[in-house]
């Protein structure tokens, strides 16, 4: 129905959502599930960048680390400490998965800040799969470790009466199944909103002529904010995965 946030007349013509369009890399035509698109390209670049950081960083093994080695070691140590703090020692078994998630989202967010690039993490299709994978694997880990005892997660035994426990069980059950939704929409919404704001300000700059310096200064400020948001959202995604993992490893209240 209403297609773009389009403001006609007055010389302003803003299409903030056009940058999220999927386009085939080679030629024209409809996008099938096997079509190579700009999303494929930028996700591949993300994987290459994350692998480069870790492979180049771990190759030297110098006593006095180079810059790349320091960056790789700090990322590794930071994530490992986060998993150990939030999910406990048992959670360290799943540390590689969480480091992979963290690096993938971090580099996808940061590469998306290159002008004229594409933000794969702004698509719910991408973040939804990441969040669903976390949801399914965490639930599977919970049932595999504790059997039906995993259901104690929903039974708040510290509540005073049985009636209250039943009410709380319903609320806990709903909040458990909303997890993959909020987990994915948080990341996609943050990235999409940030990039749409860039485009809106750029549209103002195009319309204002000499006065364009003001929106351009605004874009510079928002860019700084977006770099911060990119890192924080990757961190939040990883740490929430740790929280969910902790619930699966240690159910019960």
């Amino acid at each position, binding site marked *: 129905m209403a297609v773009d946030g389009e403001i006609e007349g007055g010389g302003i013509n803003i299409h903030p*959502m056009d940058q999220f369009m999927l386009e085939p890399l080679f030629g024209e035509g409809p996008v099938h599930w096997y079509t190579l698109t700009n999303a494929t390209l930028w996700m591949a670049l993300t994987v290459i960048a994350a692998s480069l950081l870790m492979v180049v960083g771990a190759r030297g093994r110098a006593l006095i680390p180079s810059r790349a080695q320091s960056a790789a070691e700090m990322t590794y140590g930071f994530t490992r400490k986060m998993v150990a*703090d939030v999910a406990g020692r048992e959670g360290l078994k799943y540390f590689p998965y969480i480091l992979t998630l963290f690096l993938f989202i971090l580099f996808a967010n940061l590469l998306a800040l290159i002008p004229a690039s594409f933000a794969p993490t702004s698509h719910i299709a991408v973040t939804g799969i990441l969040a669903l994978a976390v949801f399914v694997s965490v639930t599977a880990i919970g049932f595999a470790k504790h059997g039906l005892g995993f259901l104690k997660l929903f039974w708040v035994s510290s509540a005073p009466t049985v009636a209250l426990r039943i009410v709380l069980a319903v609320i806990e059950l709903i909040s458990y199944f909303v997890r993959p939704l*909020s987990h994915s*929409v*948080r990341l996609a919404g943050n990235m999409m909103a940030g990039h749409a704001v860039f485009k809106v300000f750029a549209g103002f700059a195009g319309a204002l002529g000499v006065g364009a310096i003001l929106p351009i200064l605004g874009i510079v400020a928002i860019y700084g904010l977006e770099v911060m948001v990119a890192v924080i959202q990757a961190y939040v995604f990883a740490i929430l995965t740790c929280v969910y993992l902790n619930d699966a490893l240690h159910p019960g209240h």
Partner: protein
Amino acid sequence: MEGNLAEMGAFIGAGLACIGMGGAGIGVGHVAGNFLSGALRNPAAAGEQTATLFIGIAFAEALGIFSFLVALLLMFAV
């Protein structure tokens, strides 16, 4: 008068849904402000609690993101 009534309703609804983001803003500010006041009272304990801070912010923010999602759905999907 041009345009149809359903489209107008969707746009008004999208605008109203944005009020929810203000609520999320209040919530996130509350979390961060209380963390800061606690951290200034006992700076030694603050460093270990930053993870809890971010988890709290993420949960408070989730509801604002839901209202953003509702606004987007009304604008582009309905």
